[in-house]
């Protein structure tokens, strides 16, 4: 899931980051009178492959290791840089976004771009490596910020001291709101993820909450309320509505029994599996209903300590999907 936003995040960053954030600011420059053999030493000592040529503060050219090799081939190693440098200089502005530099690298096939300010003064230099490093740093910052917020969420139960700490999420569910269906359960699942609940607990809660949410959407007169109470050891999901009520609870619990009309069945609902699915995912469930008054469904799912120490029976039943529906 997290792979998707990262790709788009890089795309965003290429547009967001200004070049001055990623460029190298301490630019090593040479003068037009520097000889090619002096240039060779400057490149070697600084471990760089090219440098801008500056005369009186003004950018007059750019000279690279390729120019040096050509000079060596021609035995021209003592010539001044002025004679061997490239004078067609492609520059980028410090306040432009990184994408402008990416475009210029692709268009002109150059290895480095001198960076100038509005007045045309040389303020930095940019290579492909600078961009990569800048993007990685920016992503690292974001990643770090996300990690911290997750860490905080995870320790909420340790940070807040009480005899019984719980987090209550309350959602109003509208009747027949099929397009919004599943959004409350998605939010509950996301909260559990932030709180560091194990994936199998997240899955069980997501299934149970989804089926309860869909029941409110499909079967109630006026919708209802979905409440998730998250505690360190237990998660309780309660769905309440004010009608129409279930005439025969035992029958409603039978897998495959459904009162859904045809148009709802055509949408793929009303399989008669909702309550059966909930039962399978929960450690306990309680269904109370009175015709004309309303229904209250309470689902309890126990969190990790219970699962790791023995109660793996219901866990397996909820996850392996081997039994007949």
């Amino acid at each position, binding site marked *: 899931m997290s792979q998707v936003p990262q790709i788009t995040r890089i795309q965003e960053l290429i547009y967001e980051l200004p070049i001055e954030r990623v460029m190298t600011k301490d630019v090593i420059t040479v003068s037009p009178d520097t000889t090619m053999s002096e240039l060779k030493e400057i490149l070697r000592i600084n471990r760089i492959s090219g440098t801008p040529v500056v005369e009186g503060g003004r950018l007059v050219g750019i000279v690279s290791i390729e120019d040096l090799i050509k000079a060596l081939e021609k035995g021209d190693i003592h010539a001044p840089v002025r004679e061997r440098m490239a004078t067609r200089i492609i520059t980028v502005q410090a306040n432009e976004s990184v994408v402008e530099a990416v475009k210029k690298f692709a268009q002109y096939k150059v290895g480095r771009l001198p960076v100038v300010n509005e007045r045309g003064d040389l303020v930095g230099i940019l290579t492909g490596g600078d961009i990569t490093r800048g993007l990685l740093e920016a992503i690292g910052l974001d990643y770090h910020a996300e990690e911290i917020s997750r860490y905080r969420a995870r320790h909420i139960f340790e940070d807040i001291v009480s005899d019984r700490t719980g987090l209550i999420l309350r959602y109003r569910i509208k009747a027949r709101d099929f397009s919004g269906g599943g959004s409350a359960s998605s939010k509950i699942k996301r909260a559990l993820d932030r709180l560091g609940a194990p994936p199998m607990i997240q899955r069980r809660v997501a299934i149970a909450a989804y089926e309860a949410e*869909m029941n409110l959407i499909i079967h109630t007169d006026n919708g209802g309320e979905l409440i998730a109470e998250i505690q360190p050891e237990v998660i309780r999901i309660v769905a309440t509505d004010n009608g129409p009520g279930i005439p025969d609870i035992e029958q409603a619990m039978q897998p495959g029994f459904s009162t859904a009309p045809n148009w709802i069945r055509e*949408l793929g609902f009303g399989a008669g599996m909702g309550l059966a699915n909930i039962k399978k995912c929960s450690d306990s469930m309680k269904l109370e209903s009175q015709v004309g008054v309303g229904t209250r469904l309470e689902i309890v799912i126990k969190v990790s300590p219970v699962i790791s120490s023995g109660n793996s029976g219901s866990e397996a039943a909820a996850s392996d999907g081997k039994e007949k529906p």
Partner: protein
Amino acid sequence: MITLSEIVQKLSLEVAGSEGNLERRIVAGYASDLLSCAMNRAKKDYVWVTLQSHANVVAVASLLDLAAVIITEGNRPDEETLARAQREGVSLLLTPKTTFTVVGELTALGVRGEPEPSS
């Protein structure tokens, strides 16, 4: 394990919804048009084949963290559903073929109904 992009290519599927994660690997497949059955049987990194194309398909895929949903028989999700898929990072793959044909082709590519036991 086969990736989504391989399946998209070999089955000539149209990519709708989120395109970001086509390198995701598929562990197994499931086919049904009943959402509660998918909810019960499909799991993380499964591909789900159905002819349903409404917004709740995205909800189920997102809640289960499915690798993708293949929507068959030329059914097309509406704009709202596509927007939701985009938002939740759910890949919807569209095809005019029937569910039966798609499942057959997936099987031929080595996708099974259960994940292979990890060795």
